[in-house]
């Protein structure tokens, strides 16, 4: 059944019809064109579909769209600065060559945005645990940790 939901996506209030059997990954990709949200395992294991829901990194593949009613969603499309500048987390990923194929990147960037937003600083080991909900098949994680350490490391 189609249900109308209201949510804030990347700062804009949206009202849209969603199927009540739909997951948030599909809503964001297919109805709103936000294709930075990737579909990997669709089982909560790889983190490619991660978005921020009310500021918390969440796997959108195991999240029903109707639960998003009244919530605030952020995807990578929504984190650029005012002058179209890259977000400091994105810049750190570029500087540290933390991106190869890029499939895991949007999810990891959002987790890092949440980490930076906490205002706390972390050791490399703590950061390793904080990004443990993301799988990367290319980089071996070291450059990703370098990037995250650059913005949130002690």
């Amino acid at each position, binding site marked *: 059944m189609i249900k109308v939901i209201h949510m804030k996506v990347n700062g804009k209030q949206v009202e849209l019809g969603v199927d009540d059997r739909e997951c948030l990954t599909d809503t964001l990709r297919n109805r709103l064109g936000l294709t930075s949200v990737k579909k990997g395992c669709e089982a909560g294991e790889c983190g490619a579909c991660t978005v921020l829901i009310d500021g918390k990194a969440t796997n959108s593949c195991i999240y029903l769209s109707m*639960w998003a009613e009244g919530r605030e969603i952020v995807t990578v499309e929504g984190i650029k600065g005012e002058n179209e500048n890259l977000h400091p987390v994105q810049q750190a990923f570029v500087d540290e060559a933390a991106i190869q194929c890029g499939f895991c990147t949007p999810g990891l960037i959002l987790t890092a945005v949440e980490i930076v937003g906490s205002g706390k600083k972390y050791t490399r080991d703590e950061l390793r645990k904080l990004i443990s909900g993301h799988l990367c098949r290319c980089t071996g994680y070291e450059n990703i940790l370098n990037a995250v350490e650059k913005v949130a490391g002690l």
Partner: protein
Amino acid sequence: MYDIKEIYQPSNLSETLNLMASNQDGIVISGGTDVLIRLRERKLKECKLISIHKLKELQGISYKDSLNDMIIYPGTCFEEIHSNTMVEKNCHCLWQAANEVGSPQIRTVATIGGNVCNGAVSADSAPSLLVLNAELELTMAHSKRSVPIREFFTGPGKTVLEKGKELLTAIKIPAVPEGSGSYYIKFGARNALEISTLGCAVFVTLNESKDVFEDFRIAFGVAAPTPIRCTQIEERVKGLPLTRETLKFIGNEVLKEVNPRDSWRASKQLRIQLIRELSQRAAEGAVRNAGGAIID
């Protein structure tokens, strides 16, 4: 698209209980990290869901003081449990377990109620809730009962919860006496996103001079067909000194009460070795958290 036939989203507890009474084929969904995976795997089909996701009355942790029960409402996610300082102080093992479930993204949605009701032998919260003597409040539209968690698990994936009829509405943790401490260890083949190969929780209360076990409780996940408490060893440890020898005694004697199996994750032999080793380490951790120390 999930294979959902119908989904109800009640806005309060009494509406939920009424919906459950009139739809006994309905499946409760909270964080969805078990239910949606089963739907994805097509182990559930054409199902009727009753969503209690973020229902206010089932959220949060209430704690008055050290003399009263702590109540954890079932819709509380593990991230919230792990960020609660009273849980950290009084129910340290549960606080540790909350940080072991899945990954950060899983912990922001996965609830403790879903973890318990799912009935998995590997559920990370189970051993800790067992040693904390948790009581589960199970509610139907016109009745309510309280079940000690020790009587809750009946077989792999099976519990005394009347599925579709009863809702877990509160997890009560009795006040913890002075001089107590607890500890949880999860063993998995990887450091993250790993279902437990073996989990062990220990709770101790020490005497005033902190050299004797006054109370000792130990529970395991994946050491038998259900999460279990080992009550025979518990009785035998009461009154023993805080020595390495007592720990060895625990590690060896507890094996009489467990019944681990071979599975693709680990052999029976490895699990026995883990039980022997982790029970000693968890006991030592609990003693440390109670302000004591093991002497060699």
